[in-house]
């Protein structure tokens, strides 16, 4: 991908939250390419309920970043038309569960347009979804909806876990010729990191090893990555060396990096916030088992959300995969043999 390469690379290092990194990515993309437009609910004067679009209308005008009527199918449907006609729309679904009215547009059109027209009509568009829980949100504000999108051929599905990745992956998603569902872990919006801009990072479809380790591999994405890293830190204090893989994209899936990691340790735990049944986590277990069976010393374990509707704020800590559950799962990986 070439989008991140500027003719005169000037590196600027600053401490950014994920929300600020996303804002900066949008601003830079809009400055670089006049066909990039941003729209959705409350993204104009307010700057989005999470302030991800803060200042964009002021800087680029109401034709480039604008509020729409409150109707998600209309938002995504209009983006399809604009993408058909030379624009690169980025739309915001205000919260994960509020994207469901747009499900038909996404499943029937966004995902299929390229294929049904034999590549003649492409839809370079990004559907940004503030997603998952851990922020004490009330019902319908904390869903982990990645399995719906990952199960729909034709979409790319991306979930950053760090501010630097948020910047790099959003820039790349906007530049992508294909539609991307961009999942922004809400609870990581305020996590900070020293970020060197412009960020140079592996592209969509590439997983990275966030922490080296030799005893077992933790596989995570989005909001579960910091949990996995914390668990690895705790395990290290007890003398167990855990490797952490951050998927970064769910689709395309980086079988190569994940399988190489699991083969190197022989044991794996998948950590994900979404309910486990028929989920991305079950897909990971199936894929890794199919490819790495002979390298496995134990069945792969999963630490996921329960198969229940997302709980109310005062009970949500039971639903979220935590360090203790991850360490318990690691303990279960048949170490005694």
């Amino acid at each position, binding site marked *: 991908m070439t989008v991140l390469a500027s003719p005169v690379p000037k590196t600027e290092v600053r401490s950014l939250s994920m929300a600020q990194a996303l804002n900066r990515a949008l601003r830079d993309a809009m400055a670089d390419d006049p066909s990039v437009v941003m729209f959705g609910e409350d993204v104009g004067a307010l700057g989005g309920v999470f302030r991800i679009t803060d200042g964009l209308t002021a800087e680029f005008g109401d034709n480039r970043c604008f509020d729409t009527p409150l109707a998600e199918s209309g938002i995504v449907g209009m983006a399809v038309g604009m993408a058909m006609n030379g*624009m690169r729309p980025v739309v915001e679904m205000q919260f994960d569960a509020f994207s469901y009215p747009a499900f038909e547009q996404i499943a029937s*059109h966004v995902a299929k347009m*390229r294929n049904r027209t*034999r590549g003649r*009509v492409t839809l370079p568009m990004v559907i940004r979804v503030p997603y998952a829980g851990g922020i004490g949100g009330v019902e319908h504000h904390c869903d982990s909806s990645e399995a719906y999108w990952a199960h729909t051929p034709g979409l790319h599905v991306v979930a950053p876990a760090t501010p630097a990745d948020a910047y790099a992956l959003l820039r790349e998603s906007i530049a992508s010729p294909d539609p991307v569902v961009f999942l922004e872990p809400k609870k990581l919006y305020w996590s900070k990191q020293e970020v060197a801009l412009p960020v140079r990072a592996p592209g969509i479809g590439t997983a990275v090893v966030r922490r080296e380790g030799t005893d077992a591999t933790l596989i995570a994405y989005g909001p579960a990555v910091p949990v996995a890293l914390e668990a690895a830190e705790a395990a290290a204090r007890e003398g167990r060396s855990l490797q952490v893989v951050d998927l970064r994209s769910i689709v*395309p*899936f980086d079988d190569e990096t994940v399988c190489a990691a699991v083969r190197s340790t022989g044991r794996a735990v998948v950590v994900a916030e979404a309910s486990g049944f028929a989920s991305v986590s079950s897909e990971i277990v199936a894929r890794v088992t199919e490819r790495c069976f002979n390298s496995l010393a134990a069945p792969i374990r999963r630490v996921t959300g329960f198969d229940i509707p997302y709980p109310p704020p005062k009970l949500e800590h039971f639903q979220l995969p935590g360090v203790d559950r991850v360490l318990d799962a690691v303990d279960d990986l048949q170490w005694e043999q």
Partner: protein
Amino acid sequence: MTPDPRRLLPSAEPVSLIDPQGRAADSPSHALPDDATLLRSLGSLITARRLNDQAYALVRQGRLAVYPSSHGQEACQVAAAQVLEAGDWLFPTYRDTVAAVVKGVDPVEALSLLKGDWHCGYDPYLHHVAPHATPLATQLPHAVGVAHAARLRGEPTVVMAMCGDGGTSEGDFHEALNFAAVFQAPVVFFVQNNEYAISVPLSRQSAAPSLAHKGIGYGVNAERVDGNDMAALLAVLGAAVERARAGEGPQLIEAHTYRMQAHTNADDATRYRDDADVEAWKDRDPIQRLRAHLRERELFTDEIEAGFTAEAERVAAHLRDGLNRDIEPDPEDLFAYVYASPTPQLREQAALVADELSREGAN
């Protein structure tokens, strides 16, 4: 400032310029199109009817899986495309193949979907015709987006967005009208009210005074037109396109017409409507009406008719030849167009199919 809602009230009766007997009818709002336009339109109508009947016959011969015919609605089909400029977009539903063809799409390519060779068989950018939409009304927000993008760039594009009476019940119809109005997008929403959504009659679809009245709630100008009156359709749709192009925002046009045949050949209309109802509409046939009018005025001679019939036969023969040709679909296409470049997983799956095929070939 609140717009005057009375301004948005559609006329009490559909606009009609030629009555079912072929006589010119006075309209306070619209003039009869010129003779050359009417004559050319009759030629298009004759070809349109021939296309519908040829496609229907090809279903019976097993060349098409199914064909939702616009038989009896040809005036709507021809007018919708004829009022557009080459750079304007048309968003057709599955029943609007004829409109797509009038806009320039090759009929053989237009019917690829129903033949089963691929989904959309034509290049949407070549004639600015979007792929046929089968999920009802979902194409309407796309039409708004195409129009809005054009407007942002200062281009004079107008978008004709088609749907049926059933489609007006879908959420996307309402969202599209609302978005178009808020953004003043140059879209003409063209509803062909043919009184049936498969088996469900209009009375179970809507309790509105007319489908055009749905525009009022969104601040969209609306008008009703006799959907079997080619002259009225050209005048009303033409004026709507002009208003949209002039920056007056979206327009909603409801054409009152009738689905003369079953939903598709797979449907049995005798289970839900009386033949007598269909018979009554035969007297309002759009082709007979314009033909009678132009015959009466001695503009439509036997010689011209022979020319129109020959052209219709030529198009029908082209359709027959195209659809009778068997194209061997390429299994590699299954994976080729899902993404700009196939994911590693799709490459593996494509290799699996290639391997299956090579083993079949070896046996």
